[in-house]
């Protein structure tokens, strides 16, 4: 008996040549991959629908009072109501500005001080112990003081966002610049590269992946800082609206604002991730 005959006996098939069997095998692998993809999407969508259904029935059948949790439909209508109200956009604009400035200043100062501490021993020796000490208390404790110092307007919210978003950016910049292959540093030194060239050609690009992770944290914390600031004391902004609506027991309105704020944060987050995939393209190879 030849091998071929044995194989045919185990798996009788009309496909006989090697090339055909390989093609069939690859096609089968692809089909399996597609099926897995569809299944995963169905699972995610199904779970979402399930949660919505539980939410719907729990609220409409009276298990949970509408004052505690509004129904999905109520939340939807509230979103249209709030989004269409004339107070909506001015308040959104106030918050967006605060977030933008808090994020920008937090990011810039984090990068600048991170680079300073990583690149210059004198800077590290002078300020690093204080930065570590300042990192210890939860930054939220500063919110009331900042309201006192900078007032009810945007400046205090920006200040809170800055102190909250600064640290992850600073630490990730520092860590990124320090996590370098010692041989790569040796190579640069052997090529007589000075501090600037080593930074430009080795340390900075090498640090970018960790720094981009810092940017994402920085963004999330800037949003958090601004909203917390508006809770503590403000006369405008999304956080202020949420606080006011909660006080008026307009929970559906609160829900709609939370959803809108989440959407906005998520969109920018995705934008940062897209930028990240462009900047550190070599991680996608």
């Amino acid at each position: 008996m030849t091998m071929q005959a044995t194989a045919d006996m185990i798996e009788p098939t009309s496909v006989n040549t090697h090339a055909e069997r390989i093609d069939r095998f690859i096609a089968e692998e692809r089909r399996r991959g597609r099926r897995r993809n569809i299944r995963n999407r169905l699972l995610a969508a199904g779970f979402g629908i399930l949660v919505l259904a539980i939410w719907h029935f729990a609220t409409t059948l009276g298990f949970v009072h509408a004052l505690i949790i509004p129904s999905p439909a109520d939340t939807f209508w509230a979103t249209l109501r709030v989004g269409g109200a004339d107070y909506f956009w001015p308040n959104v604009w106030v918050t967006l500005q605060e977030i933008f400035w808090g994020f920008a200043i937090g990011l810039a100062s984090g990068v600048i001080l991170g680079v300073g501490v990583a690149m210059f021993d004198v800077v590290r020796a002078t300020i690093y112990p204080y930065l570590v000490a300042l990192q210890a208390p939860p930054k939220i404790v500063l919110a009331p003081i900042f309201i006192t110092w900078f007032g009810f307007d945007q400046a205090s919210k920006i200040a809170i966002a800055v102190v909250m978003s600064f640290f992850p950016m600073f630490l990730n910049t520092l860590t990124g610049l320090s996590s370098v292959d010692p041989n790569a540093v040796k190579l640069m030194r052997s090529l007589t590269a000075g501090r600037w060239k080593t930074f430009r050609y080795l340390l900075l690009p090498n640090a970018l992946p960790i720094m981009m992770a810092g940017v994402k944290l920085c963004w999330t914390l800037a949003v958090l800082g601004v909203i917390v600031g508006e809770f503590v004391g403000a006369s405008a902004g999304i956080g202020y609206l949420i606080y006011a609506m909660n006080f008026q027991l307009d929970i559906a309105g609160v829900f709609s604002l939370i959803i809108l704020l989440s959407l906005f944060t998520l969109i920018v987050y995705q934008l940062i991730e897209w930028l990240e995939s462009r900047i550190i393209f070599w991680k996608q190879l």
Partner: protein
Amino acid sequence: MSQSLIEGNRLSKVYATATGPLVALDNVSFGIEEGEFISLVGPSGCGKSTLLSILGGLEEKSDGTLVLAGKHHDAPRPDLGMMFQTSVLFSWRTIRENVKLPGIILGLDRKQQAERCDELLDMVGLNGFGDRYPDELSGGMRQRVALARLLAHDPRVLLMDEPFGALDEFTRETMNNELLRIWEKTGKTVVFVTHNVGEAVFLSDRIFVMTPRPGRLEGIIDVDLPRPRKAEIMRDPRFSELVFDIRRMLGVDH
């Protein structure tokens, strides 16, 4: 007596550690001629990598004198090139951009460097891979790129720290052949660190045999095997004899 290209005289290196001074290199003296292929052989802790770093001007010697081309030498210089056990390629630069890096750092003529880069990639057998990224290449190919980069700024002395130590046996042998071919073509002076005795004998004109604790130069072996060398030379009885001699100096065979 005419002066060697590199002359080390009573070189010592001591590290201050918590448990007292650690002698990494103890009174090492030698001369290296232009165009020579020298290997530093010995077990871990014999100071061979320390010596290489001192030769590269990357590490400060504690005592002794080091002269390179008639001048005292204690800092990195562009006529030296270094290669390491890992390829140390920058993953954000293409293969071509990696090979061009030394030229960019040293501010060499861009057009000339671009041509040289293509020649070098050709020489190490990576023609057509210039636009790839390091993460797309195998370990052996990455070391080939590192070899091309080592030669990019046309250094006079190549300092190689176990450059093929992380490669599998077959790739390592291929790389050894390539290195010999390139060395014969370019006439560079090479100082090659390895703990593989066979590799050292196959490649070198002379072998500095080093022993640990403290790091000492135990002796210098002249490798009197004919050149050009091919893999068949390992069948030569003289090859085995030299390998055995060195192993005995290192105290490996009793």
